[in-house]
Each structure stands twice: as C-alpha cells, then as structure tokens.
C-alpha cells in the first residue's frame, strides 16, 4: 500500500525532506511517491509524514484514493466560501 501525489502538488519539497523511506522524488510536473518504497510510515511514525506537512489540500491521496487533507482542512477556508470567491473573481 502506498500514498500518491496528484497534480495539484506545488513542488515545495516539504514531503521529500520528511519521508523516512526516501520514497519521494521530483517528477516532470510534480513530486511522485514510489509505490515500492512507500511504507505509509508504518513502524516509523504514527502519522504519515508527507500528509502531515503537505500544505495543499487534496494533493496527497491515501491508499484508498481519498484525500489525506480534504478541502478546508488545512486553510480553514470553508469550500463553499472559496467557490463563491472564485466565482466573484471570474465575474469581474
């Protein structure tokens, strides 16, 4: 089992530095987790390290495909409020 990084990753390197398994490396457009090397931090830490430092909601998926950090969980911005702000900006 392994975690996965998707294309909303901003390439900030934070996860690379904290991964105990050296499973994360730069990719063509965003960082990637090697499914062979990722242990989900089992045996090393109580929390998955990449998911604990990643600042981008939705950028890291758990083994079951759900986001490790769902919308609103890191910024504190309610998703509907963000959507409303984006609509207002596009309408300008």
């Amino acid at each position, binding site marked *: 089992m392994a975690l996965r990084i998707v294309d909303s990753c901003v*390439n900030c390197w934070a996860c690379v530095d904290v991964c105990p398994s050296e499973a994360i490396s730069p990719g063509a457009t965003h960082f990637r987790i090697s499914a062979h090397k990722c242990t989900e931090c089992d045996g090393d830490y109580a*929390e998955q390290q990449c998911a604990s*430092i990643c*600042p981008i909601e939705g950028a890291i998926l758990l083994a079951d495909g759900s986001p490790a950090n769902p919308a609103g969980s*890191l*910024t504190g*911005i309610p998703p509907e409020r963000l959507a409303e702000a984006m609509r207002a900006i596009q309408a300008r």
Partner: protein
Amino acid sequence: MELNVLGQDEAGHAAGGGCSAGSCGSSDDQLAHLPEHIREKVHNHPCYSEEAHHYFARMHVAVAPACNIQCHYCNRKYDCANESRPGVVSELLDPLQAVKKVKAVAATIPQMTVLGIAGPGDPLANPQRTFETFRMLSEQAPDIKLCVSTNGLALPDCVDELARHNIDHVTITINCVDPDIGAEIYPWIYWNNKRVRGRKAAKILIERQQKGLEMLVERGILVKVNSVLIPGVNDQHLKEVSRIVKAKGAFLHNVMPLIAEAEHGTFYGVMGQRSPEPEELQDLQDACAGDMNMMRHCRQCRADAVGLLGEDRGDEFTLDRIETMDIDYEAAMVKRAAIHAAIKEELDERAAKKARLATPAGPRLVGVADKHHRPVLMAVATSGGGLVNQHFGHAREFLVYEASPAGVRFIGHRKVEQYCVGNDSCGDKESALSGSILALRGCEAVLCSKIGFEPWGELEAAGIQPNGEHAMEPIEEAVLAVYQEMIAGGRLDASPERTAEQCLMA
C-alpha cells in the same frame, strides 16, 4: 537653514512634534543609539538602515521552498511574475544555481551588499539547501553580507549553524506572543513529526520564536523582528510584542501591513479580512516607537527580489540568462570595493553636512516656524541616492515625509501604478493617474524632478501641490525648504484647525 532630521539629536526630541518618542525618527538616525560595532554592521544594509536603502541593493535567492507552518496570509499555491509580495517567486533555484546567480548580480549591480534567503517557504525548514548556499557564498563571495528570515519554529536548532556561517543578521516574523491570538493567525504547524493545530500549535511556535530570539542575542547575532499588522486580530497586541522583543534584545522592529486580496487565495483574502490603511500603520508604528526602533521603509519584497528596495531586476537574472554570463568574480570584487568606498564617502559627506547644519551657529528653522504650525505630509519621487530625482510619471512608488516645526521625518512609502512608460502604449493613463492621486491622499505636496502638464493640473485640483523646483536636491533638505515656503506663503496659517491627521481622514 537648520536641517533637523527627527531622532538625530536631543534638540530634535525636545522640539516634540507629531511623535511621542525620540526613537521614532527615520533613516540612519533610528540606529544612532546603537553601539558602534552594530552600526558598522548595518550601515550598508538596505533593509536595516533607511539611509542605506537609497544607495545599496539587496537580493533574495529562492532556495527554500518547504515550510513547516501555515499562516493565514500565505497561500503556497501562488506564483505570479507580476505580484510583488513575500512568499512569491518565479523560479526555484538549487544551491549551485543560487550561488551563480548571486555572483552574476553582484558583478552587474555592484551596489548589491546583501544576500538574503527568505523563502518562498521557511529557510530554516530547508536547512540543507539554505546552509549549503550560505557555505558556498561565504567561501566564494566573502564581500557579501548574508542574512536569513524565519518564522522561528526551527530557529533554536539552527542558531549554532547560523553562527558558524558568519550570518550576523536574522529576521524573525513574530506576529504575537499570546497563543489565543496566534490561533487566529496560524492554523497549523508541523512539529515533532505531527501536524499540530490551533492554540497548542501557536503556543509551541511562540515559545520557539522567543527562545530563538534569546539564543541569537546571546551569540551577538543581530535580530530584526517582522510583524504583520492584521486589523482586529493583533493590531493592539503588537505594542506588547514590540516591548517584549526589544527587552529581549531585538534591535529593530518592522511592522508591515497585511496584504490580503481574494485573488491571492489566502484565508484572510478569501474570508474578507481587510488590510490596514496607511494611517493605521503609521499610528501603530508611532505607538510602538516609544519602546523600539521602528523600520518604516520595508517594501515587503518577493522571495526572489533583486536590486534596490522598491525595484526588482529579477528578470535580468533568470536561469537562462545567468547561464550565458561569464563572471570574473575576483575582478568584480575589486570594482565592488571601489564603488562601496565611493558610496561610503558620499554618506560620510552627507553626515558631516548634516552635523554642520545642525550646529547652533547655523540659521534655524525655529523662528520661521513656531510650534503652532501643523505638520505636513509630502510625497517624494526618487530613484535612489537620497535625492529628489525622479519624474512624477516614472515613479512606481513615492516616499512620504512629514515636515513639522520639529523637523523632517520619514513616514513610509506608497506604491502606485506607473502611468507613463515613455511610449504610446501607456494603457489606461487616466485611471493610473487617478490611482496615483488616491495613493497620495493626505499629502499636500509632491516633490519630483519633473512633471507633465496634465498631472500637474489634476494634482492641484486634488489639493496636492506639485513641486519640481528641488530636482536633484537631498530629500530632507528639499522637504524642509518646501515646508518653509508653505509657512512663508501663509499656507499653514489659513486653516490652523486642519491638522495633517484630519487631512488623512478626509
């Protein structure tokens, strides 16, 4: 004419005026009380000395992308070439690329004295990339001062390493000393391999910041404290922050206005938290000035900014471009040393002139002005060198000074859209000009080297007197001269009840 720059001498303090304390002055004077060895360290640092920032340039290299905390005014997704604010960069560099860029800039812009690492994340959350860059630079470019800024979380672990790399300036961003307030600013931190949230996170961060500050001061490393002024969150609290960090030995406090726009996608931007008005910032800086030397010339630059404060020449030094440059750094160092010596000579001359003008034998402003003359704000267009030397239409920002019977003091800067770029493709001239006039509200005069007919009329109509008669003169002398002209012309008698503060409110 006495050139009395506030904060410079006791007479300036005694004369009183618009500020409550002696240390509220501007320029080199804010540093005047510091021990000689500290002044020696900061005299050519544009971010620490208001006077130096007219002459010396700085650059940031973006080698530190990772961060260990989240602040409500930051969005790590954001990256735009047209935005100028902290945390934003166009191109991330590895340490080797960074060193090459620093040498290219130092050779091309010999006024560059300082290299800072300021992000775009937290430099100390990227210790390998940050310290590798510092190590190579201290070996290969020993004439460049190194400094770093941090949120403080990792600081206590890094102090010894900072001392080893001969870094004698550190900036810590401290927005609060109260965890309840901190919980409204920092949603989470990454600490001991866990994401910690809320008040608990803020408490840890605050403790680490304060411990880091104490450790740096113990080792004789200069500490500047940055605080972001967030109206309704920490505005009143920052006075206490200022008092505490000064007591612990920080030598300069820089209160910066919150930048919050919905399009930045930050918590504060999206949730409608407002930014402070220039007058709120000034009031708080004045209130803190009783306890602390305040910095008023910060431009909140990008984490990859290059050049004098207020300008950014980063586009000249992209990775593609520096690849093609052939830098002979040994030769560059010789040229740099000569230019630095020439600037120092000019600064010394200015200091000597100021001292002469301030002697009792010289003609004094007192006598022309009495204490009933209200203070006046004036805007100045300058492209550096401490002179009134920029065309009104070319200014991207104006420096604001206050003239009063007590003398002249620097207040801050106001950014504007450049409305004239010297060709026909000027775009929407009209709206940019009215934007400039709005940005200059509260000012009663604008000093520049030249100004066009059209803006002249519009400025006058807005109650701002354009003045091109002091072109190429030192700023403080020119501002004082205009103030004296206003007094002589009876302009300050006409409406004695209308104070500068009231103008600001209008």
